[in-house]
């Protein structure tokens, strides 16, 4: 089974970057951004949070949500 996040990260790397942070080991940023559950996705643009959402979901929904926050039409 391919990781959804990895696929999205590769396919949309021209549109946005994707990184991950382990909440169990990186406590400082976990607390700073008040992460209550995993997975939690926070979208940054120009150093500012522009949106976020929580929960595992299918690839298409994940893409739709991110592009929606960024107000970008799906280039695929």
């Amino acid at each position, binding site marked *: 089974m*391919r*990781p959804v*996040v*990895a*696929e999205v*990260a*590769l396919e949309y*790397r021209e*549109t*946005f*970057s*994707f*990184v*991950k*942070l*382990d*909440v*169990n*080991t*990186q*406590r*400082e*940023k*976990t607390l700073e*951004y008040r*992460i209550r559950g*995993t*997975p*939690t*996705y*926070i*979208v*940054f*643009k120009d*150093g500012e949070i*522009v949106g976020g959402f929580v929960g595992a979901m299918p690839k298409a929904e994940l893409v739709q949500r*991110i592009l929606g926050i*960024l107000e970008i039409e799906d280039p695929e």
Partner: protein
Amino acid sequence: MKRLICLLLILSLALLVSTVSYAEDTDTDILRAADVNTDGVINILDLTLVASHFGETPAKDQSPNPDVNRDGIVNILDLTLVASHFGKTVPPPIVFVSTPLFLSVNPESTSQLDMNDTITLTFDNIPEDVKVNTGVAIVEGKTVKITGPFTQGPLALTITWTGGTQTLNYTVRPSVAFVSVDPRADTELTVNDTIIFTFDNTPDEVTVSTGVATVEGKTVKITGPFTPGPLNLTITWNDGSLTFTYTVAKPDIDAPDITSGTVSDGDKDVDPKAINSDARIEIEFSEEVSGNIALQTAAGVDIGWLGSVEGNKGILELVKGKELGNETTYVTYVIVGKVADAAGNETDIRITFTTDITYDGIPIEVSDKTFDTVVLKSDVPIVVEFYTDW
């Protein structure tokens, strides 16, 4: 009656003259001429013949010829000649027999013979008392046939006959025996196969019932094309003949197909780790082939794997350090080459496949320390997944 009396008178006169003048004449030509009826003795019968043609002018080649002195007319002179040799016997004619001359021989002297060949000599007349130093001579009219078997090696054949001798030089070939044939009899051939016969010596006068025979030393190559179906091939040479049976298969006009393989043309998401682990890629063909095979990039650059074609397989073997890779995007590889079956039917190989994508390290892991640099200073929008491994 009057004529007869006249003749008798003449006869009497002739007898008288002969007694007096020609008693000692022994000239053979005259004796033969006087023996008009050619019975070997000059007697009354000859006189009668002359007398009966008295006054005539016989032809020169007339037989019997009463013109004894050959002056063109039968007259008293002829009677006189007969009378003068009356009672004499005429010696038989001497027949001059010339010595038979050797004219020709077949095969020609200095040529090669087989052990059982026949040498035929031709003369201008029938030779007598013919003898040869080897073989058996049989006289047939003006020809003499000398039959062997002759001993292998140089042959100096001397033939003698009454009045002559002739020596002829030959080389007697060794007998040639069949040794083997390839492919062996009772097997299947293709239309354009070559059948190779091997002998213990160079065969001569080789003929075959089908195909074209080429003698190369001790071998004879028979080339087709042969007609599909049963084949009875008879090869004949100067010392023998043999027949071999084969079955000629219908011509193969089908190019070899790729029936299976580690990868197929158009394959996507091929796991390079599995291939690298096996250290080989195999392609199977529908029949035995020969040819070449290589692994290239999509751009046509050889990857460096070792390609070989054996039997009905094409094999690409991994060379250490040349493993198939996968990256954050697909990698396309192409297996290229050309193979041909035994009939020469060719197949171009072009199998394009792409590896799957590796997700190792994707997305990038950030930490508390790198977060600000990677995330907050990113020039492009960036999504952070806060995750946990369960």
